[in-house]
């Protein structure tokens, strides 16, 4: 794996590339040039490191989940705690890097797409910190199911635009952000939140999220003197997974396991399992796996988790899947919600529903290994990409809670 990927045209073998209007090429070239210069600039790197440490709260802890591990066969499960970052998810890692790039390019406005609102909140946060104007595009359906995050972004000074076109979810928010960018590219940087879109975004976002696996590797070696047997992450567009995989790609003894949103079950057609069920196509500027019909029209994805509800996937994941270096499995809504409850009640850590897909994956894979190889004692690291505060409303509905107390004390 010594070849540098992507290549100069942004290809991961046949995946990736640039499928966007000509009007955006100059901006993509400028972004690539500035990114390469920034990567080689010690001052830029020092400023980013300082922000990650003193503002975002890195390094994030690696927590051994002792009671939860009992649900995972003979595995020992560790949690990489991206949920403890400022703004509550891994999204801040990428946003701080891209905000610094925005300033370096002399641009004064940022735009972003968001599904669950995590990337939108992170972008609005960085915009406030750097004094940048900010517009966040969010599918109308998602603004309704994530109203709290809409309010958070507005508190941070961002303008939130509900997108009423198409399926009114994440993919349509991305379309609308691209439309904004074509018209505003002179003063505006588009902070894409996932390892997708046209080159160089998949590479940039991977590099800004790489810190997850760099820290994990060092923490494993320091505390356990070994690498994990597997790293596990949920995959929508795939940014936390790419961050968790990046430094382990060259370590063949470490399995890379991604878990896509299986929604109601892939057999129902209502899911977001792009790698499992999609075909190679072009969407949002990249060639990758896409959920599409026989004409090539994008199919609507379905997931209880807004952050995974996306019918495409980052091109490097497509490549890792095609080469067999990483494997991807769907996890249903039901499995994810069950895992969310178990982790919350065994460890006192409530994950985002997105991350709960990886938690469910650990239970499934741990038990599978225990059945096939009862003597194995594997070590797993789950990327706990976000915290579950934003998902309490969904949990109330799913588990039939009503928010009322269990009993009343103090009455006569």
């Amino acid at each position, binding site marked *: 794996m010594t070849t540098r990927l992507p290549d100069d*045209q942004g290809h991961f073998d046949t995946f990736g*590339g*640039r*499928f*966007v*209007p*000509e*009007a*955006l*090429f*100059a*901006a993509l*070239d400028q972004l690539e040039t500035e990114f390469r210069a920034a990567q080689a600039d010690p001052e830029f790197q020092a400023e980013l490191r300082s922000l990650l440490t003193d503002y975002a709260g890195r390094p994030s802890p690696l927590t051994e989940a002792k009671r939860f591990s009992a649900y995972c066969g003979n595995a020992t499960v560790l949690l990489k705690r991206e949920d403890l970052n400022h703004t509550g998810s891994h999204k801040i890692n990428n946003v701080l890097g891209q905000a610094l790039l925005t300033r370096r390019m002399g641009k004064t406005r940022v735009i972003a797409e968001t599904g669950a609102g995590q990337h939108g909140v992170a972008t609005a946060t960085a915009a406030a910190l750097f004094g940048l104007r900010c517009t966040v595009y969010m599918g109308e359906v998602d603004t309704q199911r994530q109203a709290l995050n809409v309010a958070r972004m507005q508190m941070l000074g961002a303008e939130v635009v509900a997108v009423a*076109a*198409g399926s009114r979810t994440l*993919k*349509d928010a991305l*379309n609308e952000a*691209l*439309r904004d960018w*074509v*018209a505003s*590219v*002179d003063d505006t940087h588009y902070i894409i939140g996932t390892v997708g879109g046209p080159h160089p975004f998949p590479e940039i976002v991977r590099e800004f999220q790489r810190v997850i696996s760099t820290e994990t590797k060092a923490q494993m070696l320091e505390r356990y003197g070994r690498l994990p047997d597997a790293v596990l992450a949920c995959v929508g567009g795939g940014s936390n997974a790419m961050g968790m995989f990046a430094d382990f790609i060259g370590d063949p003894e470490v399995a890379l396991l991604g878990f896509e949103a299986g929604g109601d079950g892939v057999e129902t057609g209502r899911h977001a399992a792009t790698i499992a069920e999609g*075909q190679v*196509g*072009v*969407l*949002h*500027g990249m*060639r990758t796996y*896409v959920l*599409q019909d*026989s*004409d*090539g*029209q*994008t199919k609507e994805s379905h997931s209880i988790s807004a952050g995974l509800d996306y019918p495409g996937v980052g091109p490097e994941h497509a490549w890792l899947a095609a080469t067999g270096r990483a494997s991807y499995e769907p996890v249903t809504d039901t499995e994810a919600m069950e895992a969310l409850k178990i982790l919350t009640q065994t460890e006192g850590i409530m994950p985002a529903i997105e991350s709960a897909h990886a938690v469910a994956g650990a239970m499934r894979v741990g038990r599978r290994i225990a059945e096939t190889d009862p003597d194995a004692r594997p070590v797993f690291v789950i990327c706990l990409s976000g915290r579950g505060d934003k998902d309490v409303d969904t949990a109330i509905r799913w588990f039939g809670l009503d928010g009322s107390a269990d009993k009343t004390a103090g009455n006569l």
Partner: protein
Amino acid sequence: MTFDQSRLGKSGEAFAAAADQGRPALVGYLPVGYPDVATSIEAVVALTEGTDGTGCDVVEIGIPYTDPVMDGVAIQRAGTAALERGVHTRDVFPAVEAVAATGTPALVMTYWNLIERYGVRAFARDFAAAGGAGLITPDLTPDEAGEWCAASDEYGLDRVFLVAPSSTDKRLATTVRACRGWVYATAVMGVTGARAETSNAAPALVGRVRALGAGLPVGVGLGVSNGDQAAAVGATADGVIVGSALVSTLLAAEAAGTPGDLGALRALVSDLSAGVRRAERP
């Protein structure tokens, strides 16, 4: 303006014929499938006729797509409705045949995934068999167009790529070199949609393309909605491209409860057609 005959293809020849009359060509766009497939086929033929038998010199037929990132609300709305009503990629072929039968070259404007899914070579074959002239590809640039260049060479189809005010000189040269037929200049940095004022970036962009000495006509699009704007844009361009304003007449007809009424469409075509005929050319 002298053009390089060997690179004009079917659609470029229509530009050259208009130039012989001392005027810019008129290029009109409508999507197949809106308000329904049958009416949309009548509508693309109406683009060639207007009210009095004089209309567009070149017709662009769009294939609706779920994620049209280059399009504004008018074309999005028509495309979404067409998809909800069950339009398929293959429905574009009878529309192409109907336009080709009038003697007007028919181009298809399409987002790339639809062509990849059909099969690039298979689409080129079936499209050429229907009498199509070539493709306009808003999200495919020469960088990723190897398969399409081979297929379009094999079936003798035009390749119309887009250039923009932000294109660097180097990219402009590469893109123009890859074109056959004509060059599509997106004069406004933005998505499709009628605008009160058209761009003043257009003359500069047209001049930059011509300075490359490629011998290809340059069409200017994005924002033109009436005959006066067509006359103004046509003063410096070899062709004037109109889309959203035409689509809007069909949206208005449906909103008025008469989706089959092409009267406003024909009237606008005639206004635009008169506009390009009064363009004051240097």
